[in-house]
């Protein structure tokens, strides 16, 4: 029971199929069992097309599994309706995408405010919190810039600030450094480590970089829609170096 409680993400026999036309049903995930403890930093690696993003979207409550059970903080995602799912995405999960997905034509500040807007926070609180987060990400002098006026690294830092807006317990990052050069990627990775260490966030990271995966506490390998390996990592040197 104790273990159950600590388990913030709990996937049992998760299968996911897509319908491609009438007769074809394509199963992408074949019975995934995965538990992530509260405060854990996990990375998922695997070949392109192995189903990493599909798995991540399930974890993020963006869609429901075809079969199997998924409990997120003891909420059964498989049976939840749109209201519950959107509230979970809003309150418990922060998404960071490879392509940033900032809302065009709106400032960094407005982008970071957005999840708080959907949470129903008053304007003053929203702005204060958004400014605080952007400052934390070193974006204090770019708050009123729109996405097309920002570099890739700056966009991703804005996106991380946005993911942190409602102080979620889980951060899901799907190749957050994929579109960045290694130095900027390093910088972004340091931010995740900081959020993990200083704020105790549970982080699930998808990456193609073996190096970055090695820094996380646990590395999960996915191959053709099934987990084929799982090992400990943890070679991340101290923050102070950077």
């Amino acid at each position, binding site marked *: 029971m104790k273990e159950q409680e600590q388990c913030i993400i709990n996937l049992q026999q998760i299968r996911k199929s897509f319908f491609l036309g009438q007769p074809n049903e394509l199963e992408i995930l074949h019975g995934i069992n995965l538990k992530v403890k509260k405060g854990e930093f996990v990375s998922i690696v695997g070949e392109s097309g192995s189903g990493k993003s599909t798995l991540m*979207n399930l974890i*993020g409550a*963006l*869609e429901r599994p075809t079969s199997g059970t998924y409990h997120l903080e003891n909420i059964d995602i498989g049976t939840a309706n*749109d*209201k519950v799912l*959107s*509230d979970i*995405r*809003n*309150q418990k999960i922060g*998404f960071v*995408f490879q392509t940033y*997905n*900032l*809302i*065009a*034509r*709106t400032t960094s500040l407005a982008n970071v405010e*957005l*999840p708080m*807007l*959907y*949470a*129903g926070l*008053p*304007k003053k609180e929203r702005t204060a919190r958004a400014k605080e987060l952007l400052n934390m990400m070193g974006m204090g002098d770019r708050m009123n810039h729109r996405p097309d006026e920002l570099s890739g690294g700056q966009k991703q830092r804005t996106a991380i600030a*946005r993911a942190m807006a*409602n102080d979620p317990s889980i951060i899901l990052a799907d190749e957050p450094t994929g579109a960045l050069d290694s130095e900027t990627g390093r910088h972004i990775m340091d931010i995740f480590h900081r959020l993990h260490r200083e704020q105790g966030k549970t982080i699930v990271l998808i990456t193609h970089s073996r190096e970055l995966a090695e820094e996380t506490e646990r590395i999960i390998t996915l191959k053709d829609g099934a987990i084929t390996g799982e090992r400990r990592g943890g070679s991340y040197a101290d923050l102070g170096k950077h």
Partner: protein
Amino acid sequence: MLIWENIKLAFQALFANKMRSLLTMLGIIIGIGSVISIMTVSSSLKTSITDSFQEMGASNITVGIRQRGEEEEVRSNGMHFGALEKSASADEDDLITDEMLEELQSSFSDKIDAVAISENVGSATVEDGNTSCNISISGINADYFESSQITLLAGRKISQGDLDGKKKVIMVSDKVIDAFFDGDNASALAQGIYVNQNGVTTKYYIVGVYQYEENSNFSSESDEDITTAAYIPLTTGKEALHSDKGYSQFTVVTATSVESVSDFASEIETFFAPYYAANEDYEIATSTMESMTESMTEMISTVSIAISFIAGISLLVGGIGVMNIMLVSITERTREIGTRKALGARNSSIRLQFIIESIVLCFVGGCLGIITGFILGAIAATILGYSASAPVGAIILSVAFSMLIGMFFGYYPANKAAKMDPIEALRYE
């Protein structure tokens, strides 16, 4: 709170694509614009009619005989009432007599300022050698000009003395003086003119010249064959008509102390009721400027609303245009919708966002339409010779209606956006 944010967002989207927004709104602008311009013209027309009717005497009550059973028609169109002339079937027993008038005046002496009587004597021509001029002769009493204003240019009005003496005197317009006395009003006074009515020529002496007022609203006659009114004493007129019995109608000028003209009008009807109780064919009816203006403006309203309705159909086309562009916009912003959902937007929040965007688009289009429509309507009203006045009711209604269109035609696209699968939206290329 979310609504306010969405309104801001909608304006941002609108300004981000100015040209496209404008083209989308064009249908709404044209639709609302044409309705408002029509309503502006009609509202200006109504105001000017009301004004000129008021000028003509808001305190006047026209009293006349009316054939029984015509009630409905007269009520719905007060304008016909004044035109009720001695109809062929009304014989002399049906007419209003001098005794009745005297009785009326003494019963309501504190409420009646004057009783103006005018009997149509008929049209005639003034002739002198090769020159001729059309006039329409009215026999009037001395109080007649209490009920209708004229500007006297020379001489005097018809007096009680003229009436008592059944004098052959006449008041003519300056048009007649232009034709026969080269416009010299003063020298025309006391001169005789020959009036030919139905082949009978009578000599009248000019006692007064009044200024002819061009009736810009309705007249289209050229200057030469224009017919102007000429006034002779009522008694003289009756003699000419070989009729001495009474009048088909007269006008009561109410005293300023009378608070409700229409109430007094009903009192007058009640007063006459006993006289006509035994009359199977005729009864007494009254008409006030108030009721005439009312039925006139009502008519204009009906016509303009009917035209507006047709113009309003173009709004439907505008609405479909808005729906089309909203569908395009939603497809373009599929990833944005996916992102919003990933950040915790409920389906209902997405739906609200796009419905508000559509409403704002139509609202702005409606406002632009109102502005252009009012400007065009005001120009048209000015050209037609009325001072422009804003149709407030129609403006408020248009704003509400354009927003309703936005809501109606925005619902389908917004619902489509709301129902998007978050993953598919995020994967959309």
